[in-house]
């Protein structure tokens, strides 16, 4: 059974799984975001407890060249703490909504992490040397009596055990009334945008006490509110361009050169509705949960409840490609509305060459679509298929009356096991899939 990705026929196999095995999952351990850095060397996860865990790719061991290296814990820190808004008498969750890496400019690594209200810039640096031989302090760091100092010496750098330190360098607070859903670093490496339900702000990475509001869709009368911003992203190459998606299934592309306030879009992407499939749930399932530019910057991808769509930035009236993620759920929309699953926000991602896309589904299934061959595959992140280098078996959901062997029926799907967050290595065929509190890493089979 051939796998599908990257334009070639190859198979995905299990590499690692991180996280506890317990059936009882602590709420705080639920992974809420996953992101590779620009080189793919580092993999960051954020969870509902406000913690960030960074994994680093270890070099392949020379003894076993057929293995890719593994990802091991590099740094763990508490990024956000729960807060209480006294004015509104409401809690502010510490859940990390998004992590975005900055391009690396020196030995240290920088990332932005955000919860509902506050964005923080973290510096992650290594320390593997320590200065010894201070004049004014002794070995334990206590101050020496001045009269005991009879000679001067130059402190010497001695090697020490590697220590990885994370320190908050900037805190960008108090700019969002509503819940932040996206952050995106601009290609100029100086600015970034943050988006909440009704507004988008542009920040300079060095300046924390002010930001520019570039989009504001809040109506004068909140009772007239019918549409919210669901995601936003900067263009990967053009630092003046960004897009934002809405709960009505539309995407607006804005050019910051046109005006200071980008309330008027430059391009408006919307697919006309199919009148034959109209129902009371049409709007809800058209709501876009994620938008991602391709690495090339020519395309963008949007995820709504049932499908993934690839758009050519030069064509606004319809997507160029549409992929059905779990069409079998269309007849179950009322149940999914009732149990709130219809509001689940799935993310999507491109592979490094933009030839394949991936997104999650229920029952710990995730789907990959090859844009060239038009083939797709459904895989499962489960402990059962977690033997080292075990090839993942394609899964299938049976939609008709007859259920074949190895297929799973729609009614047996576990809607509590949802894969909302996935990430694809920017260069290699390595993927990270967050299944509740576990992080699965899969890679292609190297023969």
């Amino acid at each position, binding site marked *: 059974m051939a796998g599908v990705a990257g334009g070639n026929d190859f198979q995905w196999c299990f590499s690692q799984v991180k996280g506890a095995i317990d059936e009882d999952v602590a709420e705080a351990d639920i992974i809420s975001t996953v992101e590779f850095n620009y080189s793919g060397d580092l993999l960051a996860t954020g969870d509902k407890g406000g913690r960030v865990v960074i994994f680093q790719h270890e070099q392949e061991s020379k003894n076993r060249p057929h293995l890719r290296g593994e990802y091991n814990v590099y740094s763990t820190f508490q990024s956000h703490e729960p807060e209480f808004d006294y004015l509104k*008498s*409401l809690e502010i969750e510490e859940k990390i909504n998004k992590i975005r890496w900055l391009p690396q400019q020196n030995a240290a690594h920088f990332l932005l992490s955000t919860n509902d209200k506050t964005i923080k810039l973290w510096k992650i640096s290594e320390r593997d040397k320590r200065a010894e031989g201070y004049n004014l302090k002794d070995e334990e760091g206590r101050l020496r009596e001045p009269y005991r100092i009879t000679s001067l010496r130059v402190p010497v750098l001695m090697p020490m055990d590697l220590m990885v330190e994370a320190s908050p360098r900037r805190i960008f607070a108090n700019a969002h009334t509503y819940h932040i859903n996206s952050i995106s670093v601009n290609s100029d490496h100086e600015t970034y945008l943050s988006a909440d339900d009704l507004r988008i702000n542009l920040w300079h990475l060095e300046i924390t006490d002010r930001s520019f509001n570039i989009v504001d869709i809040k109506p004068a009368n*909140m*009772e007239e*509110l019918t549409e919210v911003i669901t995601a936003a992203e900067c263009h990967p190459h053009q630092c003046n361009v960004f897009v934002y998606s809405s*709960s009505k299934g539309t995407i607006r592309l804005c050019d910051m050169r046109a005006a200071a306030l980008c309330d008027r879009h430059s391009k408006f992407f919307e697919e006309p509705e199919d009148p034959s499939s109209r129902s009371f749930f049409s709007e*809800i399932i058209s709501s876009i949960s994620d938008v991602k530019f391709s690495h090339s910057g020519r395309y963008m991808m949007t995820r709504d409840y049932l499908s993934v769509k690839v758009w050519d930035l030069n064509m606004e009236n319809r997507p160029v490609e549409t992929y059905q993620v779990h069409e079998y759920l269309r007849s179950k929309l009322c*149940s999914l509305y*009732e149990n709130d699953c219809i509001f689940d926000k799935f993310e999507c991602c491109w592979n490094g060459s933009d030839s394949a896309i991936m997104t999650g589904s229920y029952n710990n299934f995730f789907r990959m679509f090859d844009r060239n061959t038009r083939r797709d595959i459904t895989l499962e992140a489960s402990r059962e298929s977690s033997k080292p280098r075990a090839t993942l078996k394609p899964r299938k959901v049976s939609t008709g009356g007859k259920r074949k062997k190895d297929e799973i029926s729609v009614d047996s799907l576990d*809607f509590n096991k949802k894969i909302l967050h996935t990430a694809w290595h920017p260069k290699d065929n390595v993927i990270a899939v967050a299944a509740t509190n576990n992080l699965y890493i899969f890679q292609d089979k190297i023969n």
Partner: protein
Amino acid sequence: MFPKGTKRKFSDSGEEPVCSGDQGPSASPAAARTLSSSYSLQRQSLLDMSLIKLQLCHMLVEPNLCRSVLIANTVRQIQEEMTQDGTWQIMTQALAAAQCPADRLVATEVLCRQTDAAAQAGQSPKPFPVSGLEEGYHSEEVVMDGDVEAEVTMSSLSPVSPQLSSASYLPGPFGMAPCWEEEEEDGDCEEDEEEDSEESVSEEEESEPDHLRADSRTGEQVFGTFEIKHPAPPPDPALEELFSDVDPSYYDLDTVLTGMQSTPKMGPYDLLESLSSHAPTALSSSSSCRSDLNELDHIMEIIVGS
């Protein structure tokens, strides 16, 4: 855990309420009235469900604005359609007639207000106001009169959640209500809501075999949680088709919703699992027994405060 009746009608045979143009699965013109009544019931159920969601989403953490807006848009869509049908007017008139002002529902007021304004303006109703979007919202308590005769007695939506009982815009027969004897309802309305919960548990068990029995309906049952049972011969056809019955395990909605906020224990997995197992006929008492026991467990959990 899941309103089985609603489920059956909505999803199993693909009979979702469709906005326009869809007249339902059957084509018989003679059954058109039944069909549209079935569609109305479904639509009403969806409306009820949406209103519950809007009320319940205000917990300790600020509600998800996107979700609230989407639900509000759904409510508005239904409202607009019902206004075009003319059923909206009938319903609000019935509500006005049935209730004394003190019992006015928060949601009803809001929706009625919209309709009145629209009627005056002669336009389509204003957007459903998603109240409290800016400020933190706290569910309002509605004082219910202990009116024995009218079914507008218990404010508790469910035997389970105290939270829900405070979001008591849903009057109407308590839990499994409609088939309970008058005396039981009398007794209940004297007590406070917490006790009602506990009491209903035992009554629930006692009247277990009864809850499948069709009951005569009255116009006082509004926006409540009702069972979807076999359509009983209604005393008042017009009202009957307006006020749909929702399965009493509707309280499970709250379980699910609160479950979404905390560690989900019972998955909605169960909901869809029973989708396939339900024939479009009578609810088997065994399945409702099972759900009742689940309800009971959940009630006890909350009462004990575990």
